[in-house]
């Protein structure tokens, strides 16, 4: 791999995967490690070591001062019988519904409408403007979004939602103080924040669809829905996949809105794993137990990612075999 002559280079039609793109004078690819050094050192100090430390903490009892006391599997035993822990994971399912299932479904419909109906019949400018409007909540710091929603749903007569209801003669309601409304409000916020992302991604994906395919299908007598499900869905499947994966991970990690809007309440009913771990760390000072929750969450994120990628690979393989 040391010296590559002109002739060799000319004869090569394809770059072998293990060869660097630049012809190497000496030393092969080893010199490139120098370029990885700063990034790798930072990764080691900020991610890898803390992660290992965190796993170690799951076997300890620690209040954050003095040295952690080793207690073996106690935290791990506790976590399986901890009702709050199971509540928090059940709530993750609701978060997935609010951040993945609902936004992706509505996003698909809105993107298709914006592209097919608005874009084609009312002009591309109108389409892009509406797309930007739907996207706007995405750029809001989630903390700020949470605060706004928090005051909209304030209990009593000062909350704007209650004020609107008062117009219709409906008495004030404590939205965030009871179930299931607290969870529903939280989910509503997440849908609101999240919706723009799939819309923007799907609209871009729709540009890949060849209009001729549509025209052919139309001539064959396919209606809009048939065209949508047969052509559009199959072409933008990769985007649907990416959106679903990234949003699922985000849904499992959700923290800000819970911290700001409900604080996990009422009585732990809107607890999510990330918030639960946070309170164990900084409110109750059970560092070891908090670390255990965080570790379980990490494992879950990794498992979900692996499953997603496996499913996608096997789908791709099937598709290739089918063609």
């Amino acid at each position: 791999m040391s010296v590559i002559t002109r002739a060799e280079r000319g004869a090569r039609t394809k770059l072998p995967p293990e060869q660097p793109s630049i012809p190497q004078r000496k030393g092969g690819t080893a010199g490139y490690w120098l370029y990885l050094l700063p990034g790798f050192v930072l990764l080691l100090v900020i991610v890898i070591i803390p992660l290992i430390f965190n796993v170690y903490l799951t076997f300890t009892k620690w209040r954050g001062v003095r040295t952690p006391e080793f207690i073996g599997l106690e935290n791990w035993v506790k976590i399986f019988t901890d009702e709050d822990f199971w509540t928090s994971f059940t709530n993750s399912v609701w978060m997935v519904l609010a951040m993945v299932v609902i936004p992706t479904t509505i996003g698909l419909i809105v993107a298709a409408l914006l592209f097919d109906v608005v874009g084609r019949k009312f002009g591309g400018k109108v389409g892009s403007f509406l797309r930007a409007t739907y996207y706007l909540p995405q750029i809001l710091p989630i903390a700020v979004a949470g605060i706004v929603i928090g005051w909209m749903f304030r209990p009593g007569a000062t909350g704007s939602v209650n004020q609107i209801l008062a117009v219709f003669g409906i008495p004030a309601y404590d939205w965030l103080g009871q179930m299931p409304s607290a969870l529903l409000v939280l989910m509503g916020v997440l849908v609101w924040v999240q919706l723009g992302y799939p819309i923007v991604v799907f609209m871009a994906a729709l540009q890949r669809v060849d209009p001729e395919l549509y025209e052919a299908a139309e001539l064959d007598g396919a209606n809009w829905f048939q065209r949508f499900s047969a052509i559009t869905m199959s072409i933008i499947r990769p985007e649907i996949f990416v959106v679903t994966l990234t949003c699922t991970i985000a849904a499992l990690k959700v923290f800000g809105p819970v911290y700001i809007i409900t604080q996990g309440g009422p009585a732990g009913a809107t607890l999510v794993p990330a918030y639960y771990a946070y309170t164990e760390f900084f409110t109750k000072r059970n560092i070891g137990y908090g670390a255990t929750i965080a570790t379980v969450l990490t494992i879950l994120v990794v498992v979900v990612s692996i499953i997603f990628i496996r499913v996608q690979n096997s789908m791709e393989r099937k598709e290739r075999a089918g063609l």
Partner: protein
Amino acid sequence: MAATTAIITQGKTRVRPRGGMTKKRAIDWLLFVAVILGALVVMVPFYLILVNAFKTPVDYATSGPFALPQAIDFTGIQAFWERVNFPQKVWNSIFISGVVAVLAVVISLLNAFAIGIGRVRGRSWIVLLFLMANLLPQEALLYPLYYMFKSVGLYDSVWSVIIVFTVIQAAFGTYLLASVLGTFPKEVLEAASIDGATRWQILWRVVYPITRPTLSVLLIFFFIWTWNEFLIPLTFLPSNASQTVPVAVSVLTGDRLMDVTTTAGAALLSIIPTIIFFLIFQRTLTRGITAGAVK
């Protein structure tokens, strides 16, 4: 948060031939109205922020949340501005996000150069290792980092947050840029190499200028993502002097003692920088999020 999940790649946005404006049927109008109504619902909270930020508490109590203010009043905005020393918070946010964006782009480029162009051994594992930093729940690093920063005296310093986000954002940048550089035109690199350029020179005189558009998209995304972050700044920046905008807003309004109009004022002030940013970079942003989400 959510935006963190966006995927950036360079790509051309093809405009599908529209074939003129075809005739609109009743159903088209119906669907059009539905999409507009949806957009209006999405805008409701923004509207509420805007109109209530300029009301007095009395005005709010009498006219309700939807009415326009009877007179433009700045007391709510002013109260928030002074209580949190808003200019300082904005500066902290700009400083943190700006430094992170630049450092993370540099680290991403260095990593991606070794992986995408140098094709070091085991590079797919390396990419995966870096990507982990981005996918992991931040809670899994939170306490150890908290402890580490406390012991080295970086706790409550903006640099703690800067270092953490440089690593997290660079993880995503490495993943993305490595795949972009993996398809870098080989002829260009070979030509430079024949002319006697060293690797370092190739990186800065050949690769960097050509990938600059992608790097600028990354830069903008890193800036916004860092700006919007909440958990880590909340944990590592407890004091007033070092807080970021989102943390300052949440700390102040968290006690629920603040009146509605001040809350609206706080919300308005804290979204203005983001909105300005959005308007300036709207095109780049959309290109970034959209263009071929799959790479």
